[in-house]
Every structure is written in structure tokens, then in C-alpha cells.
């Protein structure tokens, strides 16, 4: 009786985390470069009262056995790295990656972080920075004063033209073996971990790297309809588990009332 109570409670806790992740996805439906998460569940350990295959004597074995589970628990929140839609903004420094690849930025403590958010700006020294002021590395050179035109080609070829002349250079993107293993830092940034593999630099458009699109921003890959359906499922799963808790309570009440 008590095992049913704790299994149902574990089920409700799992659905609560499911709801947390769905709400986060919905809250970030307009965040540039956001990648949605999904919760994956796993069953808990089984309690074996009668082991399948145990010897019954006289050459017979237990065919199926008795094993009761203890509930479920969340085991991973997997990031889904599908491409988001592109939205045209027309800004010179807005770049969207279509395909594989991250921009590399430098954190204040010197370590590197990676992002899909290509809404770049220039700081007072002309360096290309993110909206948080973090410098973008990977080949980007500072914009000289008097530049009138910045062109970013889909293969990473960047050209500055202006009063100071013409400067051309190549920028590179970074990709990982297991992007789902990256650690989310918040602020649209990801950090490398032992699970993601080492960053691999490459030219956009070659070797499976994505292309750069100037004047576009990558929208979040959250689909509102899909999240609403997941929300309904999580809510009903929570409700159904609470019914199991109530049924357990009533059964305990019945057993207590055997003595009048």
C-alpha cells in the first residue's frame, strides 16, 4: 500500500519537472538562437519478490516472477539542436547560422563560450561584441573608424569598406561531436564539457559546417503548438498520479476500518 503512495508521489514530482521545462521553452519562444529542451524519464529500481528463472526444484524454473517498480524519475533534459527559422532584420551585423556551428565568444574570465545568437554590435573600440558586450572571437577583426559597409559572405568571408580602405578576412565557426552535452550558462551561452567533446574550428559552408546569413537572425526552435500538447499531457499525467494517491489513501482507510 505504501509503495503505491511513494510511486505515485515520484510520478507527480517527475511531471512537475516536465512542467518546469515546458514553461521555460514557452518563456523563450522569442529568444534569438534558443534551443528547446525536453525531459527524458526513466523507471526506478524494481523490487523482486520472486526472481524470474529461479529454480523451483525438479527441473522447473519460475517463468515470469514478481517484480514491482517504484515509480519514475527524470534522467536527462535533452537540448534539441534543430534549426530555427530565419527572420530578416536587415542589420549589417546580424548574422544567422543555417546548419551546424556556433560562434565563439570570450568570457570576462578568459574562458570561451559558444552561442547561436548572432545579434552582434560594435563597442567603442570597434570590436565586434554580443549584446552583453562579450567580444566575438573566431577571426572577427575590429571595425576601423570610417567604415561604411560591412559585408559577411555565406562562406565566412568578411569585407569592411570605407574611408580607411578595404579589409578582407575569414571567420570560422565551431562545432562539437555532441552538442547536446554542452552546458547551458544562460544568456544564450554554452560552455564546453567532457560530454560535448572538444571544439572543432571550421570554415562556414564546408565540411558540414553551416552557412552564415547576414541581415538575418535565427529564431527560437520552440513550436508553441507542440509545447501546448506536452503541457496538456504533463497536466493529465499529474492528475492521474494524484488519483492513484487518493485511491491508496482510501484503501488504507478501508483497512483501518476493519476494526470498528
Amino acid at each position: 500500500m505504501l509503495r503505491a503512495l511513494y510511486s505515485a508521489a515520484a510520478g507527480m514530482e517527475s511531471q512537475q519537472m516536465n512542467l518546469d521545462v515546458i514553461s521555460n521553452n514557452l518563456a523563450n519562444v522569442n529568444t534569438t538562437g534558443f534551443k528547446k529542451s525536453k525531459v527524458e524519464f526513466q523507471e526506478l529500481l524494481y523490487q523482486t519478490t520472486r526472481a524470474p528463472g529461479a529454480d523451483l526444484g525438479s527441473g522447473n524454473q519460475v517463468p515470469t516472477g514478481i517484480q514491482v517498480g517504484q515509480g519514475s524519475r527524470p534522467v536527462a533534459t535533452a537540448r534539441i539542436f534543430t534549426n530555427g527559422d530565419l527572420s530578416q532584420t536587415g542589420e549589417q551585423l546580424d548574422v544567422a547560422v543555417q546548419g551546424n556551428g556556433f560562434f565563439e565568444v570570450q568570457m570576462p574570465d578568459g574562458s570561451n563560450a559558444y552561442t547561436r545568437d548572432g545579434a552582434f554590435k560594435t563597442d567603442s573600440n570597434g570590436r565586434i561584441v554580443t549584446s552583453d558586450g562579450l567580444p566575438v572571437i573566431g577571426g572577427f577583426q575590429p571595425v576601423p573608424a570610417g567604415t561604411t559597409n560591412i559585408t559577411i559572405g555565406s562562406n565566412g568571408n568578411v569585407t569592411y569598406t570605407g574611408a580607411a580602405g578595404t579589409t578582407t578576412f575569414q571567420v570560422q565557426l565551431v562545432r562539437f561531436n555532441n552538442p547536446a552535452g554542452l552546458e547551458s550558462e544562460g544568456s544564450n551561452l554554452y560552455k564546453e564539457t567532457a560530454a560535448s567533446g572538444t571544439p572543432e574550428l571550421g570554415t562556414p559552408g564546408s565540411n558540414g559546417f553551416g552557412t552564415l546569413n547576414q541581415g538575418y537572425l535565427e529564431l527560437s526552435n520552440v513550436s508553441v503548438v507542440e509545447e501546448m500538447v506536452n503541457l496538456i499531457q504533463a497536466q493529465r499525467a499529474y492528475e492521474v498520479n494524484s488519483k492513484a494517491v487518493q485511491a491508496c489513501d482510501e484503501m488504507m482507510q478501508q483497512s483501518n476500518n476493519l476494526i470498528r
Partner: protein
Amino acid sequence: MNVSLYQAAAAMNAQSRWQELITENLAAGTTPGFCKRNVSFADVAAASPTTMNGANPANFMIPVAVTSTSFQQGQLRATGGSLDFAIEGSGFFTVQLPNGDRAYTRDGEFQLNAKNQLVTKENYPVLSDAGPVQLDPSNPGTVSISATGQISQGSDVKGHLQVATFSNPSQLSETDYGYLLASQPGMTPQPAAAGTSVRQGFLEAPNTSPTSEMSGLINTMRIYEANQKVLQMQNDRMGSVISALGGTS
């Protein structure tokens, strides 16, 4: 002598102690840094029965409820307050009580007092490595704290907030307003471990889970009810024995 009466009564006592802890956890609501109470039941020997031939059967055991505090990380709630701090990882903020003792807390909802020092809601100064944190009222810079606990006002560094950890936090004793004292001998505060960080603009929600408290409540109520039935049955049995055999007629 009917031992089962006392066993049932002890069980009901233990269950009502559990219910008190559940109520305390649920009453915490959104108190920042509240650490939930856990209950565990221990068996204590109540009586040792003897038999006619001197054999030694097992002791009668009664349950006793033992309280402990869970120092698991609670969820971080974003408030945006510049003086709202939360610790991510194990560790406590160090504050100074009016009698000069040091106390520890996870509650990071701080304010400034009239002397521009960083204080808790009860006006106890929050300690940095060099005494209370003194801020400058004439400095227009905003107060910020780094992940390692370094407080700065604008670009001026004002001190390093003291975040203490203990190897056995279950030995901390509690005083008024939920502050913890390290009064047991051998409890020395250590500097926080490398993974612990201080977050600004967040408060730590209590680490209780209403779902597990409610299922615990159902559990304790039904066990209480079952023991009450045992008590009632023993009472009725003794009554019928007395009335059947004790009547003088």
C-alpha cells in the same frame, strides 16, 4: 501489564511528531533559505519480557521519531533585487549576532542599515573576511557580487563575503529566527568549496516538496489511525475481561 497499549501510544506520539514536522515544512511557504526537516524512526527497547523457564525472547520495541535537517540545494527564484543573494552549492552566509557570536544562514535577503552596512532582515551585520561589509553612501555605483563572493560598489571592491562550509552541517544547532550556531566542539567553519557560487538577484526557495509532504501526511494519518484502532481494541478487550471475570455475583 499490557505492553501493546504503550507501544500503540508511543507510535501515535511518533506519528504526531512527524505531522508537526510536515506542518513546519509546509508553513515555510517561500521563506528564503529554509532547510526542511526530515524525520526518521528509530526502534527503542521498551520492555524485556521474561518467561517461566528463563528463556530470553526478543525485547518489546517502540518507535521514536528523530528529527534531522536536510541541507539540499533549494531552487533559485529570480527576484532582481540587487541585495538578494543566493548560494548555489553547499555553504552558509556568516552573520554576527548582537552578543558577538557568529551565526550562519542560507537566507540571502539582505538590506542596508542606517550606517550603510549590509545587514539581514533582523539587523544582524553580514560578515566579510574583514568584518561587517561597509558600503559608501556617496558612491553612486551599483552593488554587485561576483560568483566567488567579492562585493564591489561600481568598480570599488568592498570586501569578500564570508561563505562558510562545515564537514558535518547536521551538528549545527538552531537559534532564534532560524540562524544556525556552530556550538558543538570541533565545528570549525571552512572556506567554501570551489564549486560553490553566490548569485545576485536570486533567493533560495525552501527545499521542501509539497507533493512528498502531502503523501507523508496521508501516511502519518493512516498509521496514526491504525494505532488508534489497536489502542481502542486493547481497551475494549481489557474492559470485557474485567466485566466478564470481575463481576461479583
